[in-house]
């Protein structure tokens, strides 16, 4: 599979202060990668370093030329003051292919309509984004990400604010997009069970302990590796949100 992103001997951090490294990592087209780790463990920093939103402290990040990302940020990223409609939010995804100063073409608008249809938010097109439920917001943001026809779909805790049924629906949607478009999926998640079901490759990150492990799912999603990483047993269930002590999620 073609390489989309490659991190070579990268140290990640903020403002020149290293929090984790060295990191060696390759993201390939069409592959589903799950990033797991404790809160404050550097998952989002790693993700943003991959995207180019945070510069690496050292090392190099190579991205495929003209790569387009479809980005679904964490819940709570958007200011509820903004009275933007669902259609306007989804249209923003198309801005990846409509630079500043250029308005959306008819073809762009058709793509926006298709993306809303595919994510099941067409009926919400005129509703304000801020008035939606957690699940509807995530579907809208996924539609926005898809509208840019991305090479990589990047999701930062996409199911954090939805119920179990909503989580399943969102993950099935993400999986169907991946299969249909061939885009890579990079997902930060707190839910081990979700990662275990969908991801092909797993990244375990804990900056506090200086741990960075990357590998195929069968290699890392074992109770032994996870117990060692999270510090408690996973004998009966992989999901620490439901079985682990103190909600010590990934």
């Amino acid at each position: 599979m073609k390489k989309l992103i490659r991190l070579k001997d990268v140290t990640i951090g903020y403002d020149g202060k290293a929090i984790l490294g060295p990191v060696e990592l390759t993201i390939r087209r069409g592959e589903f990668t799950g990033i797991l780790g404790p809160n404050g463990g550097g998952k989002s920093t790693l993700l943003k370093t991959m995207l180019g939103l945070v510069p690496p402290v050292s090392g190099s990040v190579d991205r495929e030329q003209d790569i387009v990302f479809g980005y679904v940020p964490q819940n709570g990223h958007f200011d509820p003051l903004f009275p933007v409609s669902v259609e306007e939010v989804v249209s923003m995804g198309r801005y990846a292919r409509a630079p500043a100063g250029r308005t959306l073409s008819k073809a762009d608008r058709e793509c926006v309509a298709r993306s809303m249809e595919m994510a099941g938010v067409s009926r919400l097109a005129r509703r304000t984004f801020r008035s939606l439920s957690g699940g509807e917001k995530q579907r809208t943001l996924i539609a926005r990400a898809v509208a840019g026809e991305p090479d990589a779909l990047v999701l930062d805790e996409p199911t954090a604010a939805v119920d179990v049924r909503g989580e399943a629906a969102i993950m099935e949607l993400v999986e169907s997009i991946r299969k249909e478009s061939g885009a890579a999926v990079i997902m930060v998640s707190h839910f081990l069970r979700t990662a275990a079901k969908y991801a092909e490759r797993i990244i375990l990150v804990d900056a506090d302990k200086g741990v960075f492990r990357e590998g195929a799912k069968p290699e890392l999603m074992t109770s032994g590796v996870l117990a060692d990483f999270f510090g408690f047993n996973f004998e009966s269930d992989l999901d620490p949100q439901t079985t682990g002590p103190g909600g010590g999620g990934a």
Partner: protein
Amino acid sequence: MITFGEFLHSYFLWRDPMLVGAAAGAICGLLGVYVVLRRIIFVSAALTQVSSFGVALTFYIEGLGLGALSAAVHPFALSIGLTVAAAVFFALKKDYSRISREGIIGFGFLVASAAVVILGDRITKGSHDIASILFGSAVVVAPEDVYIIPSIAIAVGAILLIYMKDFVFVSFDEESARLFKYPVRALNAGLMVMIAVVAAAATRALGALPVFAFLALPPLAALYFTERLKLVFILSAAMGVLSAVLGYFFSFVLSLPTGASMAMCACVFFIAGLSWREVRKRV
């Protein structure tokens, strides 16, 4: 009190200030939507004060009698220069080493306000002008403002229209805009420079109080009236115009201070918007 008929017959007195007020109200209303949505209302307050300081400083330099230097300092140029510099600083500098952005903006507001009062105390010749700048008590405008303010309003309005998608995108989701390689810093700085230019020009013509009111209250009212972003822009600009025109009208016929009258009209729109939202919530 002046009757409506007398008011109409005096059109040669109010035509120019009302035109300038309407142009300033419209463009402040448009820009104010970004000010409110980006939660930088205090920035606009600080910028109007910095602009006032620029004008006060010019009066002070003039009063020093430094000959060619005093004559060379144009009030508008100095005011606009200082305001744009402050705006660019607020736009680009986000990390102030443990001091919040609001703290630095508050500092800028207080320094500029105090400096205006101190300079005003030192300028006996221009003390009335300083009061006009601060509170907008002037009922007439300088002849050049009849051309400058509408020209700035048209130019800024055109830029806002052409780059509307981009300004909205960067304001709503700066991270994604950076991901899509949008010129985020240029758009942010551009928006702040436009706010600075409009604030400086309008403050010199109308006063700091009404300009701050136009930047904050019509957009807030519009956000109460509608949930459609495009309609928010239209309503806000319209309420900015109406605040200026009605404010000047009431000032003229009731002999009220002009700037305060304009600001009060903007307050009425805000209260109307707030009431509309409360009524809609209950129905």
